[in-house]
């Protein structure tokens, strides 16, 4: 029997628990499924394009690279499914409430904390947004990276938390993070409640998707997609898996929410048009 093979990046030990659980559940529901773990998204995308895996659980940045590589090779990749929580995220630029910085113009000449160099939500997208508002990173303001889990495309929350801590410590004047992490850091006390102000919010963008290669067996892939979309939070067997992976329901994949990231990749030269890694300071 043919097995659908999926790649995932091991950004945390729980990844094993998650995909072992999915593997068992898929198997109980008639889908032969297995997974391969990669230590970083670059290797995973290359493996997908080389046909080592049929589908990859990709970060948005990994998607950006995968479709560039696919186009360069004249093949196709498709976004099969995503989480409800992958849709319409925003990133925010946060300052200390007492800093006197009221708007983006106030960032001129200041130090701005971002996440790891490959974090879409804490680095690439917010910096692109600042650029669109007339602030060139490294030129109009100083950039302070928090390189945690490089190669894991910001999946590790550590870089964003370190940026938030730097803001509290006063070693930076502003920090970039995903909207839900601002809520989390405030609620958990990393950011003392009421001590920060949000001075900018990006337009909404999308996050991860299951990226399928054209070589993936169509029937298996469709079975995979329909099983995912049929997973119900009502089902006590499924609920722990959804909780671990951080969603209430799977949705059909869409690629309409990646324009900001694509622009950010182009502006910063992170990947070239063929999907080669071009960022000089990036060591996954």
């Amino acid at each position, binding site marked *: 029997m043919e097995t659908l093979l999926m790649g995932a990046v091991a950004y945390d030990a729980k990844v094993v628990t998650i995909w072992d659980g999915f593997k068992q559940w898929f198997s109980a529901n008639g889908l032969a499924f297995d997974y391969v773990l990669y230590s970083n998204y670059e290797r995973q995308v290359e493996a997908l394009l080389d046909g080592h895996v049929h589908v990859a659980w990709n970060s948005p940045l990994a998607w950006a690279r995968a479709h560039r590589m696919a186009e360069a090779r004249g093949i196709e990749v498709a976004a099969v499914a995503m989480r*409800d*929580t992958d849709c319409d*995220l925003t990133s925010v630029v946060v300052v200390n409430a007492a800093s006197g910085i009221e708007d983006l113009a106030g960032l001129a000449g200041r130090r701005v904390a971002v996440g790891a160099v490959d974090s879409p939500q804490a680095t690439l997208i917010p910096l692109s947004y600042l650029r669109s508002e007339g602030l060139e990173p490294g030129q109009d303001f100083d950039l302070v990276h928090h390189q945690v889990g490089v190669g894991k495309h910001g999946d590790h929350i550590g870089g964003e938390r370190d940026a938030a801590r730097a803001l509290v410590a006063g070693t930076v004047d502003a920090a970039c993070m995903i*909207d*839900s992490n601002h809520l989390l850091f405030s609620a958990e006390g990393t950011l003392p409640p009421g001590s920060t102000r949000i001075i900018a919010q990006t337009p909404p963008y999308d996050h991860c998707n299951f990226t399928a290669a054209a070589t993936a067996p169509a029937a298996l892939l469709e079975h995979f997609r329909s099983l995912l979309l049929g997973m119900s939070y009502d089902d006590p067997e499924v*609920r722990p898996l959804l909780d671990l992976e951080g969603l209430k329901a799977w949705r059909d994949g869409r690629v309409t929410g990646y324009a900001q990231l694509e622009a950010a990749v182009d502006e910063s030269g992170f990947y070239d048009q063929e999907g080669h890694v071009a960022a000089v300071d990036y060591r996954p």
Partner: protein
Amino acid sequence: MSPPSITDLDELGLDQGGHLLLHRAVSRAAPGQVVEVRGRAPQLRVHLAAWCRSEGHEVEMAEGPGPVAGWIRPGPATGARWHGAERSGPELAERAPTRWGLAARGATVEAGGVEFPFPLNDRAAVWTDAAPAIYRQAAAAQWDPATAVDWNAPVELDDDVEAAIVQVMTYLVENENAALAVPARFLGRIHPHFREVVAVLAVQVADEARHVEVFTRRAELGGRPLGLSTVGGQASLLTLLEEPDFAVAHFLLSVLGEGTFLHLLSFLERHAPDPVTARVCHLALADEARHVAFGMAHLAAVLEADPGLRPRLAAAIHQRHDALAQTAGLNREVFDALVVLAAGSWAPAALGDGFRRVQELSVEMDEGRRRRLVKLGYHPEEAAALSSLHTRNFM
């Protein structure tokens, strides 16, 4: 379609506990009803969108300034966690599902939980209606070894009599260790749904720990080393520890063993040559009476539900007897020590009295066992035969 329900967070942020108000509003919304969120916290709109995304709700953000931040359309996962949840009481279940795990009896248990290793989960196998009252008595009757015994009372005995006391105490401690280990082995296997049964056994284990302590302290009071421990005595106790069936183990330990010990402890209290020995035996006796009462109540309940257990219990006595046939049973040192203790001296006439009293004790023990077996539904003749097969080690 109902009009929107309105939730006003005032100045409270979602990072400051405001999510409680949203949770409550969403869970109370009628099907299809929208929740209008108002508030003045500066980051409310950013947080509201993020919160709704993570909770699986749709949200429409309000445009421009104003008191309304947005409208939540509760998602299909709202309340889903409690679909299929079960009430685990308050009345006793005939069989407590292992998926109820450690939940308080009567709690609502989310579906999909892991199975817990509580194999003793049949009401018929573990429960007795006497358990709640016995637990209340047990909890009320706890005593403190430090203050319940006057450890400074004069204990100045003839050397040979003191040696006999030390030997008897050494034997008692060994048996108390067994009486502690047997219920402890079953404690973690009984489903917590039957909490009063678990509680009785837990207190019983604590009782035995105190018995071990006070008998040890009495043995050491005279400054002598502890006495002898024999292969035969320990072999007899091992058969108790190895019994895998809860009802059989409880029967052998509490009905037969501790039942026999009631007579022994009362004998020791009566003939104790010093006040400390009398007192520690008195305290242990009161606890043991409760252990026996619980054993009788449990076995009576189990036998009522399953009369087929009666021959199995009888077979267990035979089996234990056969297993111990090659061992000495009660060691001679303990028997002799009981004689000396009851005699109070080594004078021939006194020893004669002591010997007669120990003989009377074993008749009393036998009568007690027969009485309890008859009470559990055995024919008097069978009860007599079974009693005679009971271990010569008493416990």
